[in-house]
């Protein structure tokens, strides 16, 4: 059986996992209409399942995406209207992690170095591995992806941030503790929240640390930096046995994390994979702004809360969006004391992105405003900032990649 699985892995794509150092060789097509009912079978941006943006110091837009087993990245100098030939980062076929909450990550530092993170499934138990690819020449070339961690257990959902000194921070879901517990016959659920730092944009990392032993294993982690440049993470933790509610945690330095601060008592007791991670943005005043999805006995839907004391206390959860329209996938961005929030709704026929804005650090909010809508497959909405301007980044199968200036709305 082992031989069989080995062969199967080879012929179905894992054999391609050792991605080569690629030169640009394919084109990220400019947006064009495609039938939302027909899955697109190319590795291009037009066929993406998830697309993540990043603005380089020179003002160029970079987008990394996952499409049909491939991770690729491309540069745009006209705000996403067209892209230069793309660079293939990795090819994993069926083994690329394209779950509903998975997406490749892309960040950069002030000198234009970039890091891409993604996950793929590395063995027949469907344990995953986070890989990192780095560019040290402003994106002309990206390195052969290497594992973020060499631990044989599963790692997924890496979230990246770059601190003011240019150090790369990575947090991810890690199953080493769960795997060890199961080996000794103990019942273990979910995963753990791990983190590490890199001084060279991911070429190698410092000691791997566990910030929180008990977390959900299927939801992405949110990360934002405090005014002092320290990461704050938000994730779906496990409380009191198997209650999957959210928590924030300050990462103090290379090895130490602060206390686990529960955002709200939603009381979602479950062992499902929600595939629905939270969002966080920390304002210049140090206020934590968080948004999350729950189906707890206390509340169901997506919610917003804020904390002015580093997560020790959170405001009462406020409902986001129309509860009858499946509100989902919140994204937050803080710009001084102006806070932007977007999310997706679905009414059985079309998916729509709505926005709310606060100009007083989250105390009060504007009414929801429709930003964009589509029929057919669509990615999560993401917020991104370039200098003083805020944009909605949204990939849809019908309209392609869109970058919409919000402050012009």
């Amino acid at each position: 059986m082992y031989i069989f699985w080995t062969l199967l892995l080879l012929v179905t794509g894992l054999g391609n996992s050792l991605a080569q150092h690629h030169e640009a060789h394919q084109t990220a097509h400019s947006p064009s209409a495609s039938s939302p009912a027909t899955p697109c079978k190319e590795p291009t941006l037009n066929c993406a399942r998830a697309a993540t943006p990043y603005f380089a110091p020179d003002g160029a837009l970079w987008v990394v995406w996952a499409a049909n087993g491939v991770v690729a990245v491309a540069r745009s100098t006209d705000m996403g209207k067209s892209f230069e030939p793309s660079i293939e980062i990795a090819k994993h076929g069926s083994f690329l992690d394209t779950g509903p909450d998975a997406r490749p990550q892309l960040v950069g530092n002030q000198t234009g170095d970039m890091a891409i993170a993604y996950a793929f499934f590395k063995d027949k138990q469907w344990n995953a591995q986070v890989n990192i690819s780095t560019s040290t020449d402003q994106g002309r070339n990206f390195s052969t992806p290497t594992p973020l961690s060499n631990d044989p257990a599963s790692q997924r959902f890496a979230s990246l941030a770059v601190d003011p000194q240019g150090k790369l921070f990575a947090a991810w879901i890690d199953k080493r503790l769960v795997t060890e517990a199961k080996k000794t016959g103990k019942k273990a659920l979910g995963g753990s929240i791990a983190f590490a730092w890199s001084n060279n944009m991911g070429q190698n990392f410092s000691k791997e640390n566990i910030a929180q032993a008990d977390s959900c294993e299927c939801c992405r982690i949110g990360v934002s930096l405090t005014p002092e440049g320290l990461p704050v993470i938000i994730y779906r933790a496990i409380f009191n046995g198997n209650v999957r509610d959210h928590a924030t945690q300050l990462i103090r330095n290379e090895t130490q994390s602060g206390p686990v601060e529960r955002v709200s008592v939603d009381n979602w007791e479950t062992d499902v994979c929600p595939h629905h991670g939270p969002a966080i943005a920390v304002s210049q005043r140090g206020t934590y702004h968080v948004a999350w999805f729950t189906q707890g006995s206390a509340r169901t839907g997506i919610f917003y809360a804020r904390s002015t004391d580093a997560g020790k206390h959170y405001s009462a959860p406020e409902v986001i969006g129309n509860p009858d329209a499946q509100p989902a996938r919140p994204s937050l961005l803080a710009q001084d004391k102006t806070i932007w929030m977007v999310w997706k709704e679905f009414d059985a026929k079309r998916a729509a992105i709505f926005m709310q804005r606060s100009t007083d650090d989250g105390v009060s909010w504007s009414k929801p405003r429709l930003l964009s809508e589509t029929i057919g497959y669509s990615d999560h909405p993401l917020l991104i900032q370039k200098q003083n301007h805020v944009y909605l980044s949204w990939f849809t199968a019908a309209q392609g990649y869109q970058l919409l200036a919000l402050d012009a709305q």
Partner: protein
Amino acid sequence: MKKFFRYPSLIKLLFNVLCGCFFCLNIQATELKNYTAGDWKILLESSAKKPLVVHLWGFTCAPCLDELPRWGEFVAQFPELKTVFLQVDDVAPELTIQTLTDARLDRADNLTSAVVFDEYMRYEIDPRWRGELPLTLLISPDGDIKRLRGTVDFKVIQQWLKGF
């Protein structure tokens, strides 16, 4: 015998043939049908007014994979109950088949999504379903649907079956 090893291409050919046979023996018994938009209604109609269990699972859901072998045991215990397994992630059919075979579900009614399983696909099955997995739907002959979110206590299904 030594002569044999002088011909690496022959060894390779023989190896491929053996592997091919192994592959055939292992998975040909499993039929994996594609599931696409509009198929939910057809699936419901196929139950012919008998109890129907639909189990939704995916490869990106570790609890789903952990639970599959227990579903294999359940199906063996209740072979007369129509139980359908729907895999929702974008994974090659041969991998799905092998995983089902390992869980002793190769004789079950197995479906795999041929399209991206997004909110449209979920809404068609259950407007309240937000994508969490695993999800099991117990569908009564009169069309009433009971949802079981997360891994299943199979006693609940057995109790449900007693009602028919």
